[in-house]
């Protein structure tokens, strides 16, 4: 009996295995897409109101289109679903004229009513949109999200199918650029109402951008195909796109090197020297800054002289050139270079003597008596090397003892939020190109301040800048705020970040820019030989 059973069991095991292998390969055979890239991770959502993050943006910009879109090189606002717009004299009312030839993938026309519905949805509390606060520049937006009693009407009105009037709570000259950001992309009301929360499934979703979703396999890939009904379909070169969710950095590099993908974002920094000379390697300054936060509620950081001493003593050029090695540029400003019209304020140049004098003035001559403090950073090799170098500089220049502490990303964020740190590695990358995305951070009420530093003067300056309709005066006010920030130094800027990409030499229409945004709509491929 046992012998029979054994034979039977063996056969059954083989049959089950074979069935599994065959079953799991049904319908997963893919032709190589015209263009494939590693999107770094599985995206959080295809719902423009729900999604957060950078990989999400790459997909959402391809499948949806807002009132405006970005110029792939200058990042200026280009007409998207809106063909033109006008502004009232006080800068508070924008009137958008929408094109009449744009369609949803189900054939419906895209109208101003779609935008009215979508903006209202973004700001409604039950939508639970993390980026709803970006819509708080619209009159009545904040009151709506915060579920305040008797909120004023939302300042978004479709006056006709092709005209949308947006009334702002305060002037925002960057509004046209902001509206290209994915939270402001439209969703199809009928699709949402029919399917509820499952409207985002690949076989249900209705979109209005240059590409449509063909298939989505969780943690594997999203397959896109050109949407022929898109108003600008003539300008779209790619027929199919694969966005792989591969998150291993070496895996992504392997996929690029073997031609499985045409674009890899952020190749491994430790291979930067080997990759630098490849024609496919592209690095470019980014609208982002790496800086140190000081917890001003803890000693010795309550003393501005200590903060200034720490900030003045650092060799930023050395840190950027020898430690980061990826083309980063030393920065003594908090707002990065490259924002049209805005000239960042600057901290004084490195001055170790002055730093020592300040420290002595604060009662710690030669670092004596200064308690050992912790420098917190999120756990990874780059931040570790960086913080070690910073600690070394402080130790040798100022005689200060530092303990390095690392935590996993979310724990690190939480420690910062709770103020459970002395000094901390930090970075900030712009959501859109405006000094406010940086300087709003350090108002006393900002959740992102996390330094416990509060200045009434700073708060009023930021408030006045936000309310100022004249762009030049507005920039001047923001600059004034940055000067205040660099005077008090609850933070010390170190370097401006860079973006790096490996882009196949057959790829056209890929432009380096400050936000590291590369709309798939504008990308083309020119292959001389077929891909493997």
């Amino acid at each position, binding site marked *: 009996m*046992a012998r029979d059973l*054994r034979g039977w069991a063996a056969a059954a095991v083989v049959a*089950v*295995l074979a069935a*599994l*292998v065959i*079953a*799991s*390969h049904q319908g*997963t*055979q893919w032709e190589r897409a015209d263009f494939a890239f590693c999107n770094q991770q*599985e995206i*959080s*959502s*295809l*719902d423009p109101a729900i*999604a*957060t993050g950078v990989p999400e943006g790459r997909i959402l910009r391809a499948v949806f289109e807002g009132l405006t879109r970005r110029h792939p090189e200058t990042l200026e606002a280009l007409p998207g679903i809106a063909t033109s717009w006008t502004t009232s004299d006080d800068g508070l009312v924008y009137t958008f004229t929408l094109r009449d030839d744009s369609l949803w993938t189900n054939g419906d026309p895209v109208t101003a009513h779609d935008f009215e519905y979508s903006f209202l949805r973004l700001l409604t*509390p*039950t*939508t*639970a*949109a*993390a*980026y*709803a*606060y970006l819509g708080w520049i619209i009159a009545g937006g904040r009151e709506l*999200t915060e*579920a305040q009693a008797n909120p004023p009407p939302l300042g978004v009105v479709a006056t006709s199918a092709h005209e949308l009037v947006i009334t702002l709570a305060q002037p925002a000259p960057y509004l046209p650029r902001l509206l290209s950001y994915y939270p402001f992309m439209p969703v199809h009301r009928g699709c949402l109402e029919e399917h509820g*929360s499952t409207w985002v*499934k690949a076989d249900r979703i209705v979109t209005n951008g240059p590409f449509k979703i063909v298939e989505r*396999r*969780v*943690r*594997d890939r999203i397959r896109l195909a050109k949407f022929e009904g898109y108003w600008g379909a003539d300008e779209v070169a790619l027929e199919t796109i694969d966005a*792989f969710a*591969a*998150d*291993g950095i*070496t*895996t992504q590099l*392997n*996929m690029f*090197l*073997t031609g*499985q993908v045409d674009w890899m974002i952020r190749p491994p920094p430790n291979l930067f020297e080997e990759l630098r000379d490849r024609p496919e390697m592209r690095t470019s300054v980014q609208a982002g800054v790496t800086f140190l936060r000081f917890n001003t509620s803890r000693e010795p950081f309550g003393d501005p002289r200590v903060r200034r001493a720490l900030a003045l003593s650092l060799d930023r050029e050395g840190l950027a050139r020898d430690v980061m090695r990826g083309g980063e540029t030393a920065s003594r400003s908090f707002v990065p270079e490259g924002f049209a019209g805005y000239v960042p304020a600057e901290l004084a140049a490195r001055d170790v003597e002055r730093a020592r004098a300040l420290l002595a003035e604060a009662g710690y001559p030669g670092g004596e008596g200064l308690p050992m403090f912790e420098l917190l950073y999120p756990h990874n090799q780059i931040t570790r090397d960086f913080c070690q170098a910073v600690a070394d500089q402080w130790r040798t220049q100022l005689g200060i003892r530092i303990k390095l502490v690392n935590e*996993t*990303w*979310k*724990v690190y*964020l*939480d420690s910062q*939020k*709770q103020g459970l740190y002395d000094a901390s590695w930090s*970075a*900030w990358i712009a*959501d859109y190109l405006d000094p406010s995305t940086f300087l709003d951070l350090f108002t006393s009420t900002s*959740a*992102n301040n996390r330094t416990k530093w509060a200045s009434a003067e700073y708060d009023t300056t930021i408030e006045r800048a936000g309310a100022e309709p004249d762009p030049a005066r507005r920039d001047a006010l923001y600059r004034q705020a940055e000067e205040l920030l660099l005077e008090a130094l609850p933070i010390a800027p170190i370097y401006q970040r860079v973006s790096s990409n490996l882009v196949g030499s057959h790829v056209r229409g890929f432009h380096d820019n400050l936000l590291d945004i590369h709309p798939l709509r504008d990308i083309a491929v020119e292959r001389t030989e077929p891909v*493997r």
Partner: protein
Amino acid sequence: MIGTLLQRLAWLAVVMFGVITVSFFLIRAAPYGPFDSDHPPPPAIQKNLLAAYDLDAPVIEQYGRYLKRAVFDFDLGPSLKYRDYTVTEILSEGLPVSVTLGACALVVALIIGLSAGAIAAMRPRSWIDTAVMSAATLGIALPNFVIAGVLILIFVFHWQLFPVAGYGTLGHLVLPSIALGLPFAASIARLFRAGLLETLSEDHIRTARSKGLSPLAVIVRHAARQAMLPVVSFLGPATAGILSGSLVVERVFAISGIGSHFVESAFNADYNLAMGVIILYTFLVSVLNLVVDVMYSLLDPRIELS
């Protein structure tokens, strides 16, 4: 035997309940939440997010609701990180992938492990035995991402035989199966060799040899079954290990299984997904152990399931 089986299944339910309860509270004891990020939204929006996912209620209340939904509706809730999916959708899309990879790895482990063990046992203490067993020791010691790296160097970059990453064709499965299966093959080889050597010294083997059977025939016909016992008892934990240990291999080869959720859902504070993965693995490991016990009693009638 049926009674014993039922008893074991009742124990399984108790274990599942315990694991769910402990995990539920442990996960929520982490200092960070699912909606923390480096661009955190203002408090009003955080509140809306927590309310939307029913995370604003007291933990004990959340636990009650979770248990009720999980047990009566088999509803593990939405993923808090991959917001377009429910936990059930993620697991049911990823599990077949992980199981396929695991099954292939197990086949690799068995084929290589049993052959190596048999070869070593036929000439104990010869140079072949030493070589095979040294290789096996090395195989156990090497972490599978090192094996994966070496395989990629040889079979992707040197001889362009297999795709470097992804999932979809049989070719995509070859390297990951080997990388995942090799350490287990090494253990199997050692166990099978030891089992064979013990069995080969017994009387009925001497009889078989005296009949003039070749060493291979002796092993296959007379010794293998008994020598398999330690291997079989290893297969339960090995299968569990292959399934849960696939996270590294899945990452290196960009395979869309569930291995990586095992670690990442915890880092992301994706409470629901983390719970789902824990429940699934607890269930799989318990059931696999039960299956091994059943197989054990089938292979050797002297052993009773108790």
